[in-house]
């Protein structure tokens, strides 16, 4: 039997989970039941997803002995580009076990994904190696969605939280950092002061309320999900079940006239850096929405906020003194080069709920 690439099957799930646990979660122990169960849920066709009646789109690499040695997760979704609907698919969790023994597996998995039925392929989590691979097969990086941003709210707490990520015992310094930050706050350091959002209010929102406003607020993007396939409620349910980043806060920003003009969803944990899953705003209100986010994150004890750039938010992020750095990249590929050109020129919503970050493989602990 030769090496082969094929669609993932139910019987592959334990091997995929074991690989994922070892490669991405850096775990030496075998995964418990939760990770395989989640992988099965997310890679086999499910109600609410575009592929519910099709064979799984995620692919596995099978070695000559019949063992699963590689995987690429594929999540199809329908999107709107201007006036047309396109079939797209996001890919992530590309991994190869013992790559030295299977040097062509990663390349074959990526090519197999790109040869799928989707018109547009993308990944928001491409590392340096993956970026190179995508670019070699005609894909492109979208610079405006390939940057992460960070806003420091409490500098001492931020330093401690950052250090504690590498060395957990440092977290005992949190009370000291909180004291220092109160002094810094009292000194009124201009660079740390938050802006004014006069005329706007923000309130907690239920999932139903968020599901109602996200499609409206994403209309300012020329390329965006149709939010039907997969359904927003399914994506939100996944996003709400992550454990590692804290609770998912969902809030809507209203104008003075009571119209929803923005919303933000972020994971918050006291003493830690908040992670934004999505921030959407009507044109001209990205600044107030960001400001509302920062104020709320500070009010629940977060020491900083981080998220992913996008073309609609970029100017407001700069104006709000955010720091930018390059982590993972957004890469796109289309066999139709005119589509690729259109995507490159469009204001594109491809991250967070629109990309892969809703799924629990990013941010789940499965413990």
């Amino acid at each position, binding site marked *: 039997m030769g090496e082969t690439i094929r669609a993932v099957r139910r019987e592959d799930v334990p091997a995929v989970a074991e690989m994922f646990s070892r490669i991405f979660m850096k775990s030496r122990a075998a995964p418990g039941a939760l990770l395989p169960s989640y992988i099965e849920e997310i890679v086999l066709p499910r109600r609410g997803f575009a592929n519910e009646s099709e064979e799984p789109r995620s692919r596995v690499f099978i070695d000559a002995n019949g063992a699963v040695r590689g995987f690429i997760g594929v999540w199809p979704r329908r999107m709107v580009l201007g006036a047309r609907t396109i079939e797209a698919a996001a890919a992530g969790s590309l991994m190869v076990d013992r790559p030295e023994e299977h040097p*062509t597996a990663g390349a074959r998995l990526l090519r197999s994904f790109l040869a799928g039925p989707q018109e547009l392929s993308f990944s928001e989590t491409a590392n340096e*190696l993956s970026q190179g691979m995508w670019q*070699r097969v005609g894909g492109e990086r979208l610079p405006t969605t390939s940057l992460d941003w960070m806003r420091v709210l409490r500098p001492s707490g931020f330093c401690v939280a950052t250090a504690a990520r590498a060395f957990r015992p440092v977290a005992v310094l949190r009370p000291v950092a909180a004291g220092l930050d109160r002094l810094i706050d009292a000194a009124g350091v201009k660079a740390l002061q938050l802006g004014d959002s006069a005329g706007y209010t923000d309130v907690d929102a239920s999932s139903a309320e968020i599901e109602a406003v996200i499609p409206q607020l994403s209309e300012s993007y020329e390329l965006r999900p149709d939010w039907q396939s997969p359904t927003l409620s399914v994506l939100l349910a996944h996003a709400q079940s992550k454990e590692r980043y804290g609770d998912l806060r969902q809030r809507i920003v209203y104008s003075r006239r009571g119209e929803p003009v923005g919303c933000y969803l972020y994971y918050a944990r006291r003493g830690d850096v908040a992670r934004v899953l999505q921030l959407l705003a009507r044109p001209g209100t990205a600044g107030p929405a960001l400001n509302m986010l920062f104020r709320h994150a500070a009010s629940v004890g977060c020491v900083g906020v981080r998220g992913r750039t996008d073309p609609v938010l970029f100017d407001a992020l700069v104006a709000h003194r955010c720091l930018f750095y390059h982590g993972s990249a957004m890469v796109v590929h289309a066999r139709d080069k005119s589509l690729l050109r259109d995507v490159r020129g469009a204001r594109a919503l491809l991250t967070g709920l629109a990309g892969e970050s809703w799924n629990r493989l990013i941010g789940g602990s499965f413990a």
Partner: protein
Amino acid sequence: MTNTIKHKVREFVETSFLFREGREGLADGQSLLAEGLIDSTGILELVSFIEAEFGIIVEDQEIVPENLDSVNQIAAYVAGKTSGITAVAV
């Protein structure tokens, strides 16, 4: 024919992998993978080159070291494909 293919392949390998790595010599039978000259990105670059230069479609199951690991193997694979014979057992 094979010599022309080998010449083009060698030129591509030298330009794309050998000089980029600051290396000088490479025998036609030497392994690109074992020498660390090529990785997953390089494999894709090589496949794109083969498809564009020789007008053939490299099938997924043909992307294996047996076809792509040395100048000789690549040239033999391309020669087989262009003459209508798949060069390797899949």
